[in-house]
Each structure stands twice: as C-alpha cells, then as structure tokens.
C-alpha cells in the first residue's frame, strides 16, 4: 500500500473548499514522503470535476459516476468508496471533516479495517509516519496520535489547512470505476430536507459575530443581539446551552460540535466561555466579552471585557455605534 487518497465532497455541484484544503494537506505530506496523491470522486454527473481536482494538486482521480449516487446516501457512497479504496490501495485516506465526511469515515474505517483519527487540525511527519493532532477533552487538550494499521483514515477540520494553489495546466490521470450499487441494502429514505433559512450572511463567512449563551435566558434577549449584528453586517451565534434552551436554532451553534468561526470581531455576550465554545471561536481576531460575572473564563481569552449585565449595556452600545456609523 502506498499513496494518499482524498475524498471529494461536492457542494452545489462544485468541489468543496474543505476538499481543496485536504488536497493541499495531502500534497504537503507527499512533498516529504514521496507519496502519490489520488482523489475519490463519487456522485452523479461529477466526471467534469476531475480537472478541478487535478488542478488542486491531485495526480490521479478515481471516478465512480452513477445516477444512483445523485443524492448523498452514506450506504451507497460507502459501496463506491470501497471499490475505489481497493483499486487505489492507499496507505492514508484523508476526508474533509464536514458532516458527510464525519458520517462516512467511521463506517469506512470499520469496513476496511483502518484506524481513524477524527477532527484533525494539524500534523507532523516523522520518517514515513504521520502524527495527527486533534483537540480532546472539549478542546482543553490536544492529542498527538499515531495510527498503527496499514491503512489509516483521518477526517480534517475545515479551515485548518492551506489549499494547494490551483494550476490549470497540471496533468493527472482519471480512472472510471463501476460499483455494483445495491440500493436495497440501505433501508433509509430521505423524506424531507429542511435547509436553514439563509440569513443576511452566513456565520462562517461573517466578519462580525455576536454570540449569546445561558445568560440571555429568553429568545427576546437574542433580538438585541440580532440588532447589534444587523448594524455591523454580522451574524448571530450561540452556545450549546442557548440552543438546548431553544432560544436559537441549532444552525447558530458555535463550538466543538457546532460551527467553527474566526471573524475579525467577536462579541461574547452572557456566555461564560466553556472550552467547547472557545473551541469554535478562539481564532477570532478581536474578542469583546460582556458578562456580569467577573470570574467568567471568557474574559481570559478576550481582548476587551465589560463586567456588567448585558441588558444595561447593549441598548446604549447599539445607539452609540449607530451614531458613529451614520457619520461615516
């Protein structure tokens, strides 16, 4: 077994950015180990995407293009991936850590008898071996982990790796593979899909994020956060507690099991700063914390702190910023 195989996640008909980041990571490993870099391209009418993968650093694309693979269905995709893995015989399989990757990786690992490290954010190379870093204990610690099986699998956290600068004239090979897709085997049917309402701007892209937590206590309080976010063309985020209390929809959750954000400006309002939340926002450039408890750990990781009940601060802050922004 040799070489690195990456899994291609496709979003709205295009190769996803996390896939290109994983390709960049594969190239960086290959530069030191001499491994080849291949990609698994699975879906319906996806063959055209192969050139984009090759431009993004892939040497060889294994394509499984089948009408049955139009909608993401883990059971069918796994059957296709097994065929590709058998053909490519990689020693490392890198998977972008989006929801689809997190869904596929453990099952593929069990099927192909590989060790798996999930949510990898960094790595180092020692000889031929790769040691993967992942946050553990709610991001209070980082573990460096080695995989001892002949084939190793890794899911990679989005936005932790550099993409390979695209080269339009890069050459590579494509191989089409057929998988005997048994659509009877997975006994699941998707009945309905509910896409979250697309807000003014998405949380991950926002330059300003205004987040609330347990201290907000009711959904009305989030209205004030929305006002501040609206004023600054930002987005509203929340802690897991606020989501569990149904103050905001789950799509607002920031943290280890929510979204990972790194805006220019982050407002942490009425939230204490549990490590699981910090895991999702510690990369923010400038952090402002407003909390009535001066002992709250959020202040330790903030640039500016206001020890006060946010209800006494936000209306005036919003008014002051409005004044300033209308001037400029």
């Amino acid at each position, binding site marked *: 077994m040799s070489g690195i195989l990456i899994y291609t996640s496709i979003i709205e008909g295009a190769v996803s950015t996390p896939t290109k980041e994983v390709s960049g990571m594969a190239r960086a490993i290959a530069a030191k180990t001499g491994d080849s870099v291949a990609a698994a391209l699975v879906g319906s009418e996806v063959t055209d995407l192969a050139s984009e993968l090759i431009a993004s650093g892939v040497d060889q694309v294994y394509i499984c293009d089948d009408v049955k693979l139009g909608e993401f269905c883990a059971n069918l995709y796994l059957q296709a991936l097994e065929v590709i893995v058998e053909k490519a015989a990689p020693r490392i399989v890198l998977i972008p850590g989006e929801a689809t990757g997190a869904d596929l990786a453990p099952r593929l690992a069990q099927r192909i008898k590989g*060790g798996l490290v999930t949510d990898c954010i960094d790595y180092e190379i020692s000889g031929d071996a790769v040691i993967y870093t992942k946050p553990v204990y709610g991001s209070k610690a980082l573990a460096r982990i080695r995989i001892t099986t002949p084939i190793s699998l890794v899911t990679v956290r989005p936005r932790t790796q550099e993409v390979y600068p695209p080269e339009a004239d890069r050459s590579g090979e494509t191989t089409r593979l057929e998988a005997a897709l048994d659509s009877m085997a997975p006994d699941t049917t998707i009945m309905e899909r509910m896409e979250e309402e697309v807000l003014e701007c998405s949380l991950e892209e926002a330059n300003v994020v205004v987040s609330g937590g347990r201290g907000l206590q009711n959904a009305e309080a989030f209205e004030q956060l929305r006002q501040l976010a609206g004023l600054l063309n930002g987005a509203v985020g929340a802690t897991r507690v606020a989501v569990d209390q149904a103050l905001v929809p789950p799509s607002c959750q920031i943290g280890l099991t929510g979204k990972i954000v790194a805006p220019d400006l982050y407002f942490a309002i009425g939230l204490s700063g549990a490590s699981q939340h910090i895991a999702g926002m510690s990369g923010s450039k400038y952090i402002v914390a407003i909390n009535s408890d001066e002992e709250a750990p959020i202040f330790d990781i903030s640039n500016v702190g206001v020890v006060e009940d946010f209800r006494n601060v936000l209306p005036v802050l919003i008014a002051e910023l409005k004044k300033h922004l209308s001037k400029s």
Partner: protein
Amino acid sequence: MHIVVCVKQIIDPEIPSAEFRIDFEARRAVEGQSKQVLNPYDGNALEVALQLKDRHEETNVTVMTVGPESDQKVLRHALAMGCDDAIWLKDDGFDNLDSHGTAQVLARGIQKAGLPDIVLCGRQAGDWDMGQVGLRIGEALGITCVSLAYNIEYDDGRLRLRRETDRGAEIVEAGLPLLATITNDQSNQPRYSTVKGIMAAKRKEIPIWSAQELELDRDAIEPVVVVDELVVPSYERQVMFIDGQDGSEKAIQLAEHLIKMNLFT
C-alpha cells in the same frame, strides 16, 4: 420493541479549563477536582429511548457500558432514569481500549443480548471527541446506520428520524433494525430520575460479561491508534476591562474603544 443504549462515563466535560489536569505520563486527564459523569450526548440518547418507551407499550430499554469499576454508576443512573435493564461489559483486557476496540466489545455485547430493534449511542463522547464508536458498532452488526439524529418516531415497523445536516435538517425514514447516533436538541434533554426510580435502580441486579463470555479475541481489540503526547494549549489574551459607573457609561466607553480600534470598516 427492544432498544439498547450504549453509554460511557467520562470526566465532567463542563469543568473549567483552570481545574483541568493531565497525567502527561499516562497521556490522559486525571479526575482531580472534577467528577465522573454520564457523557452528555449519551444522556440525550437515553432520553430518545425513554420517550419511545413512554409512547409504545412493551418497549424494553437496556443500557450497556464497557469500562472499569467506577462505571457502574452510569448504569445505575440510567436505570434510575427509567431503563429496564443494564449490562456491564467488564474485563481487565478492556482497560485501554481505543474507539475501535470499544466498538468491537459493545457490538459483541449487543449480539449476546440478542440483536435489538434499535441501538442508540451519543454522537461522540465529551472526553476524546472521536465520534466513531456508534457507527463502527452499526457496521460491525451490519445494520442500517443514521448519524446525528435527535428525534425518533416509531410507526408500524418504520422509524422516522430527524437528523442534523451541514445545512439544516432532514427527515429520514428507515426500517429496523437500526443504529442511530444522537445529537443534542431541546426535545431530548435528559429527564431527572425519580425517587422511586433511584430506589429501584439500587436493587437491580446488573449482569457482568467478561471478554471470555463475549468470546472476544485479544487481537480483535488491540489498539489501532496510539496517543504519543497530550498537551494543553493556551488561548489566553491580555484582557482590558472597561471602567464606568453604570452600564450606560461602560457602553459609551466600549463604543469609543471599538471605534478607536478601527474595528468597523
């Protein structure tokens, strides 16, 4: 209907970073001031199971864990919440299992108990955050898997699961038997135990199954990943506190500071 819920006892994931301690030699967190708790997502999984039991007669919920002496506490906790039975998979050989090994042990335990209609696991454990034991069990058992579900309804031999996706949610219909990993939602916040439940849980006999009883080979549960090192990262910044007599004054100061820092472009 028979439901098995797999649970894990972990060091309280809510403890503040300041109280978090690591045994660097053993490459694991030490209990110290913190306490051992039920993994929160497993609490959500138990709640989903118990809601199915509330709605459907003749539903049996069995809770299962693999782990050392102290892990019996989570089984009693689950029984007190309303589970009917508990099974403890315990063996000296189970002390240093990784996700792969844990999944093989639990899969064997589930098979020995008789393949149930539904297997539920938390989406991930709040200690190692690996998120792979549940789906590995499903694969080992060769049954349908649905990940990141938060709500399950049963009707006439079919299940309707609501699950989280990258871009929102979806409803999936599936047949039995099925394994689902459960994520948190307002609808599955774990219930409190009743006094009656706690009393009954104390008296309940919990069978213990060893590696031998599970007919498990040592080779099958050998670690496939090795932790080389565990380190504590620091996200600390030098914080500047805003002064002021009251909230309004602090708000004005804060606005001035943010404007001066040129944070709005």
